[in-house]
């Protein structure tokens, strides 16, 4: 029959296997024995966290992350009929993510977008070399909870400050959190410009986004 811990462990392991069939089987087994929210948060989501860590360590790769995310989506779908109305397909938050104006690097930013999406956020990746005002316009359009700002050069870091200043001018700063990242960015820089947080890598971006938006 399986204890609670065993069932949760199987759910998590199924996600790490990145196989949809395994996840579906594990969810079917846990259904009725555990609350849907527990299956999702303590089983499947834990597995996604592990996938993120393995990705950072170079043990799993981006396609695995996407397969795991797809498997998780399939698993969550199986539970929707048992979840209270309003909780179905609930996104963790809405995020606008982009590389700041003048900076054309986008691989790291794209990976962060992918990981955030896999973790259950609604992500609007607006690309690279994004004009400062476009971040604001997009955040308004999609009613973003958080703006992610990537900069890969010391000369474009200022763009992160510019977006924050523009949010203040528009009277939106209290409503929208700001996360910064990119090789030259640091926690100290985040504090200096008034960002809500700094993330060193994609896994940390997911963890910090969850913290900020819970």
């Amino acid at each position, binding site marked *: 029959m399986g204890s609670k811990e065993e069932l949760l462990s199987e759910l998590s392991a199924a996600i790490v296997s990145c196989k949809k069939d395994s996840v579906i089987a594990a969810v079917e087994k846990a259904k009725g024995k555990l609350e849907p929210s527990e299956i999702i948060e303590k089983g499947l989501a834990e597995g996604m966290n592990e996938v993120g860590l393995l990705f950072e360590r*170079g043990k799993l790769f981006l396609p695995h992350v996407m397969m795991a995310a797809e498997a998780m989506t399939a698993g969550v779908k199986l539970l929707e009929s048992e979840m209270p109305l309003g909780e179905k397909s609930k996104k963790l938050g809405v995020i606008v993510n982009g590389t700041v104006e003048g900076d054309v690097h986008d*691989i790291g930013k794209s990976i962060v977008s992918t990981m955030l999406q896999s973790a259950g956020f609604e992500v609007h990746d607006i690309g690279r070399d994004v004009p400062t005002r476009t971040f604001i316009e997009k955040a308004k359009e999609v009613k973003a909870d958080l703006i992610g700002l990537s900069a890969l050069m010391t*000369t474009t870091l200022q763009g992160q400050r510019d977006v924050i200043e523009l949010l203040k001018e528009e009277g939106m700063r209290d409503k929208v959190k700001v996360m910064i990242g990119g090789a030259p960015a640091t926690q100290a*820089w985040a504090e200096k410009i008034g960002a809500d947080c700094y993330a060193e890598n994609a896994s940390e971006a997911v963890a910090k986004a969850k913290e900020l938006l819970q």
Partner: protein
Amino acid sequence: MAIDYALRMGDGKKIFLSKDQLLEEIEAGSADAADLGEIPSLSGDELAKLSEILMMPGKTVSVEQGMEVPVTHDIGTLRIDGDQGNSGVGIPSSRLVGCMMHERAFGSDTMELGHIDYSYKPVKPVVANECQAMEVCQQNMIVPMLYGAMPNMGLYYTPDGPFENPGDLMKAFKIQEAWESMEHAAEHLTRDTVWVMQRLFASGADGINFDTTGAAGDADMYGTLHAIEALRKEFPNIYIEAGMAGECVLGMHGQLEYDGKTLAGLWPHEQAPLIEKAGANVFGPVCNTNTSKTSAWNLARAVTFMKAAVKASNIPCHVDMGMGVGGIPMLETPPIDAVTRASKAMVEIAGVDGI
């Protein structure tokens, strides 16, 4: 009275650590590399030597006499004439002037000619200009002149190139399409790099530098390895240097292999044999600086990785050092105290053959 030693954070900020704190940091940094790379951490003697280097009182330090190593370059003359946030000091000068400055004023052992856009794909339409510049430089200089650029396979994806961006495809769960896009882009990268270098070698280039190999992930490295292989076959005596973009090959594809080895997730000591197998003469391993950690932590970590890479490589290793790599803080003009300590540690502890 306890003494505090001046060090840096990974972002360049000056900090002061006691000896005990410094020792803790270098142990932790080395252990982190050992854990990730599954390699030995630095020995007690090596940690002691590293701590001595970091605690030296001089602003700059240098290698012991007799341990000097050659220095190779990247970015061509952009550090002189570049002024658009691309690591230059904005002195108007031709590329010939910049190259000769490196040879005669800076004492460079080798020099590199590079294009303002510094990637292979944009060189294609202006290759005649590059050939002319190489010829003129060769006629005026003595040191070996390479041609350098980045494979930068990202330029082959939309909006810059013909293949759909695999990041976008993966977000839409189109994984098979993403794989195909990367594989096609890698083929084009190999073809274009070989085409460009056939012309530059005909113009007298002494070698080629692949800078930031793997920047777009494992498919980028795959395309580059095949380019190295093709160039080595066509030009058996040419000098080929391949420097990496990051410490771990980013698994954008995840399934591409070279010589039976999956490229995704490889650390420097695992990258070295493949670079050698492809036919390169010199390997440039990388270790990334963590801007939230101290320079002691970062340098110990970098030296641990580089030591393993040197051991695994039969070709010389010229460790990539500079802004945010090789244990050096992430600054456009990295502080000389950090740069010289990192250089000394790399030569005397990691045993690198060049920088």
